[in-house]
């Protein structure tokens, strides 16, 4: 406890007071920045081509899980359409590039914004309802997107609004991420920016409103919080982040395929967010790794990929019944116990 206080004061002296008030660099954020810096410098050259790809996609789905975590950890809402929204972001990004040829970052932000609007629209019918109906509506949304996108396909450089061509034209990587190594660094940087953006929301007005809504909607409303608006804001933020993830996926692969975005993937990503831990960034990193790297690893040691589902399902039940903060929560709690014991001694 005392140690924590000392650490905070030493940081606050190092920073201008105002920035501390609005956006304090706490220990978890610092740890995040340091570990990502380490990842960016050390890891990419050590990986072979396959695992570079696997890690790029793990980081991308860590970003997507960040959106799920906003709704689940801050508002207690269950969104089962996140991978579908990733698909929306990817679709718009590809469409934008084929139509305009603008730089990737512009297309990415456009895709993210449209995906945010779609996320808000899916959540809208459920604004006047409680948790369960919202979860079900998002599930319908995910299933609906799967059917729509199987019919329309992803744009690959053809004519018309849908832009389907017989031979695909690949969207080029962003300038800063042309090789796989550079792309891994690029997605890591974007992931950190997304986590920080969510953190910024959490520590400012929306975050305070969410905290009150989570405690009691009645109290929130009585204290003048616009419940519907801040819930919708949560959906929009989650959708925006999913859109970023979709754009990065489109950039990494060049073309997208409807088979990447079935409803089952949305469900799985949600389950793994709970298993990994929705309450801090470590959990989200674990989610990304479980979603994409764990199947590859299991495959390497000869375990059938379908059995991973059994493990994930059991993990979800275990997390819901006994470990609400997920694996990350347990790890951090364990570390805290260790340090506490050392101080006590």
């Amino acid at each position, binding site marked *: 406890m005392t140690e924590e206080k000392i650490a905070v004061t030493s940081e606050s002296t190092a920073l201008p007071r105002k920035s501390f008030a609005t956006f304090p660099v706490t220990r978890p954020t610092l740890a995040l920045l340091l570990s990502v810096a380490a990842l960016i410098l050390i890891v990419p050259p050590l990986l072979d081509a396959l695992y570079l790809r696997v890690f790029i996609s793990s980081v991308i789905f860590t970003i997507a899980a960040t959106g799920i975590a906003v709704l689940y950890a801050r508002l207690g809402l*269950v969104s089962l359409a996140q991978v579908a929204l990733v698909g929306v972001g990817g679709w718009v990004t590809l469409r934008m590039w084929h139509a305009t040829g603008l730089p990737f970052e512009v297309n990415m932000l456009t895709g993210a914004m449209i995906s945010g609007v779609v996320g808000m629209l899916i959540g809208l019918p459920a604004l006047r309802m*409680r948790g*369960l109906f919202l979860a079900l509506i998002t599930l319908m949304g995910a299933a609906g997107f799967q059917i729509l996108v199987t019919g329309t396909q992803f744009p690959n450089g053809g004519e018309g609004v849908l832009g389907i061509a017989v031979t695909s034209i690949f969207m080029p990587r962003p300038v800063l991420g042309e090789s796989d190594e550079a792309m891994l660094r690029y997605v890591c940087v974007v992931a950190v920016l997304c986590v920080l953006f969510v953190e910024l929301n959490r520590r400012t007005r929306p975050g305070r409103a969410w905290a009150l809504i989570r405690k009691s909607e009645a109290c929130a409303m009585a204290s003048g919080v616009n419940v519907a608006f801040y819930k919708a804001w949560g959906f929009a933020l989650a959708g925006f982040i999913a859109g970023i993830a979709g754009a990065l996926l489109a950039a990494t692969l060049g073309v997208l395929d409807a088979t990447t975005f079935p409803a089952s993937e949305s469900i799985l990503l949600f389950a793994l967010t709970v298993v990994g831990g929705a309450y801090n960034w470590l959990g989200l990193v674990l989610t990304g790794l479980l979603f994409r790297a764990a199947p590859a690893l299991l495959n390497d040691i000869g375990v059938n990929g*379908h059995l991973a589902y059994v493990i994930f399902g059991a993990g979800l039940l275990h997390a819901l*019944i006994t470990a609400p903060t997920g694996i990350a929560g347990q790890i951090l709690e364990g570390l805290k116990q260790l340090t506490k014991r050392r101080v006590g001694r």
Partner: protein
Amino acid sequence: MYGVFLVAGLALGAIYALSGVGLVVLYRSTGVLNIAYGAIGALGAMLAWQLEQMQYPEPVAWVAALLVATLLSVAYGRLVAPYLSYREPVVKAVATLGFALMILGTANYFWVEAPRRLYLFTDTMGFELLDVHITGTRALVLVATLATTFGIAVFLKHTRIGLLMQALANKRELSSVLGVPVIRIETYAWLISGFLAGFTGLMFGDLVRPNPGALTFLVIPAIAAAIVGRLESLPMTLAGGLIIGVVESMSTLIKPIAPYRSIAPFVVAAILLLWLQRNRKLTFSGHD
């Protein structure tokens, strides 16, 4: 021409409706929306297919499918659900998602994606009605759905267990204080729901295809039907399921929207949901 699609739509809609009824019965008495419903039926149907391939007589396959589905459902209800009985409905629903993933993983492990067909004796039966040939399976689905919905409504209203189920649906804590044997009544609900899951799994396996993934995610349109009934009303769920099935089937006839016809459940559910809550205000009393 229209008749063929109408009959196909009614049969499909009946499966949605019957699954929806199974979901609603369970939700009303236990507060659990069982997302593993499709997966439970899937394992039953796959087992039936396997037994058929191994040349066992067909009744064995039927019994195995229904028994396995019922057992899975009751096992979850007795062993896992009690740990979550005091959590919010959405947490209970998400937990069944975990169960669904476990069953789906197991089923996919034993039965990899492949073209298969499940044959039931009702396929060879059939009759003509208004120039349309109706197979025994389709007729069976329709009759079973109507009879089950009616039967369950009567059961809830006129038997003691049904009455106790309704008591649980209203206030779980109060019922237990008044001496309602909560766990036993809930077990009945899991049993009924599991049996219906097994039956709908078999029917869907026969009418569409026996494939673990497809059967597991059949639960999504079934949930759409249950949403039409606001997870409460059996007649509305029945109507919702049938309407969804007919709309989905008839859309085949309209060229531009034909590829997207399986989106019908979600469109119908979303429209009805918006319409049903048109006069509601955000309030804080009542339940989900």
